[in-house]
């Protein structure tokens, strides 16, 4: 009897832990699912595709190739967290990148050209944020105007690609800090640092909690939170991240090109959603977005290793996006029922 009695509470405790975890951390599930998918993708590719998929070289290249997407995803996570969306990121990346290249070509020093291009991204973000906050324009439409504006301006700067000769910019890509077979480039370090700063701001500061609150409930201003300032700020952050991505992509390709990043906004949104951020706002994790980008990048690598059409990447990402959206909807519906 005593054995049974002591065993029963223990079992109840296990299920209690599970229930408490599920109710408190249900929003963590999509992110955990993304991590699981990433691991499964790696193991699957290692077993079925080729034996050297899980190699330091390959994983290092993943960060290098997707650094600009990681940067864009950080800005997008802030925006989506407030329940908004920023369609302009790909165009802003193209515009700031080509403008940086143009300024450098004209002989401007990097110390002036880089802040100028980041400022350009910030200004487009400010425009979108102001339209959203002060003119009550839907984020989708406001950022659409930003998309048009930045794409057009990119072509105004130059219709053709501009080669970058600046050694400082190029060294962001060519410098490799090696640890055995592992390596990391300054662009990769930049992406990781921005993710860490973004994660800290989002999860540990008043500003970050305000973004959560705005996405969770538009009445957040009743709690004395600075809603209008924060709403504008997230779009400015996204614009600056677009500027950083422009720098990284320019270093990566060695040139500015006005057609860069057409459709990138969709890839970024997909990566953020796969990483566990709810598209309606209020729930999500910064690190999850980075995982989402890596899932996207890994699928792309696997497709190219298989020698299949790259269009499969779009289809698989589309299907993954759909699955995650449906799962998220189920989770939200359940937690709404509970409350």
């Amino acid at each position: 009897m005593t054995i049974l009695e002591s065993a029963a509470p223990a079992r109840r405790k296990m299920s209690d832990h599970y229930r408490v975890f599920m109710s408190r951390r249900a929003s963590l599930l999509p992110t955990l699912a993304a991590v699981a998918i990433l691991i499964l993708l790696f193991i699957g590719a290692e077993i079925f595709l080729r034996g050297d998929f899980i190699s330091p070289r390959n994983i290092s290249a993943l960060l290098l190739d997707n650094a600009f997407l990681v940067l864009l995803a950080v800005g997008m996570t802030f925006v989506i967290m407030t329940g908004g969306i920023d369609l302009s990121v790909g165009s802003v990346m193209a515009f700031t990148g080509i403008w940086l290249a143009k300024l450098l070509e004209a002989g401007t020093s990097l110390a002036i050209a880089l802040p100028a291009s980041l400022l350009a991204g910030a200004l487009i973000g400010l425009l979108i944020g102001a339209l959203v906050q002060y003119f009550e324009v839907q984020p989708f439409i406001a950022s659409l105007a930003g998309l048009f504006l930045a794409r057009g301006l990119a072509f105004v700067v130059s219709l053709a690609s501009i080669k970058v000769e600046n050694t400082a910019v190029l060294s962001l890509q060519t410098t490799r800090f090696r640890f055995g077979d592992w390596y990391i480039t300054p662009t990769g370090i930049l992406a990781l640092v921005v993710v860490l700063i973004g994660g800290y701001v989002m999860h540990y500061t008043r500003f970050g909690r305000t973004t959560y609150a705005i996405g969770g409930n538009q009445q957040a201003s009743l709690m004395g939170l600075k809603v209008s300032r924060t709403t504008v700020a997230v779009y400015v952050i996204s614009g600056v991240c677009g500027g950083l991505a422009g720098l990284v992509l320019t270093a990566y390709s060695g040139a500015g090109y006005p057609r860069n990043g057409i459709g990138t906004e969709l890839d970024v949104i997909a990566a953020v959603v796969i990483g566990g951020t709810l598209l309606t706002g209020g729930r999500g994790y910064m690190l999850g977005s980075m995982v989402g980008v890596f899932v996207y990048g890994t699928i792309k690598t696997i497709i190219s290793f298989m020698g299949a059409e790259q269009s499969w990447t779009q289809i698989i990402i589309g299907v993954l996006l759909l699955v995650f959206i449906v799962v998220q909807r189920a989770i939200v519906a359940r937690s709404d029922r509970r409350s």
Partner: protein
Amino acid sequence: MKHRLFWPVAALVLLILINTVARSQFASITVRDGRFYGALIDILRNSAPLMLVSLGMTVVIATRGIDLSVGAVMAVSGAVALTIIDSSADANSLGTVMVAVVVAILAALLLGVWNGFLVSAIGIQPIVATLVLMLAGRGVALLITGGFITTVNSTPFSFISTGYLVLLPFAFFIWVAAVAAVGLIERRTALGVLTEAVGINPEASRLAGVRSRGIIWTAYAASGVLSGIAGIIYASNIRAADANAAGQFIELYAILAVVLGGTSLMGGKFSIAGTVVGVLIIQTLESSILFLGVSSAQSPVFFAAVVIIVVVIQSPPLHRFVRRLADSVRSRRLTEPTSDLEAAG
């Protein structure tokens, strides 16, 4: 002034006037071989794809939704049509082209039904639901064409976009027929009113016995079909299925056309005539921008300015501000005579 088509029509007339003054040949129409030629005729012809897409978008927006996948649907329907024609023995046979067009439209219908399923049956937000197809659709189109740009030389197929039917371009008749069909169905039956009811208040209309699910589903299916036809016209114009370029950014222009025509993005009341005017404004603007010698790649800057001006004019805070301003002016006018009297006394 009060009529809601006043401002869109005024803008269109103004644009045409400016163009006529700036270049005399703009308004001139010449007749050659029993066909009209001229800049205005070109605008009527070139507006066909955007017109069809915008028509579907109007109905979807009226249900408080949005369809981002229209460009991808265009790419798929173009890819389907050209792959069928390309693989047939005789590309010039009318039968082959008919089959290709019908199959392509059916494929587009299928995609539209899929969007409608996600939105109305599963209940996913329209932006998100159609984003899935926007992302995956071009991939599907690329798979259909095998990653290449399929080109064909088919006289009946080219006729769709470049052919003439009694003086005017065939493409013009296609969009007029589509506008008439959608207009008749929406305005001569109760469907239009029911659509507006769903858009204004989905819950209330459901309680009132409106089958909102079916209406929303139909709207997305219609948008799919119209985008499919637009994709065929586009492919016929360039005689190729370019999965990446077909319908690129067209969702943005279509939304702009709908908004320019006075339909609110918040759903509810919609105007098909307004959308027609909106599309013509965009095409005329595009033609003017090209005339100014601006590269077509740079034209988005102008459209961005138009979008910003239009949304700011439509924005509720501006309306509140103007109303407050008008109120204060009126109240000052009411108080002024009394102060005059006081001064006189």
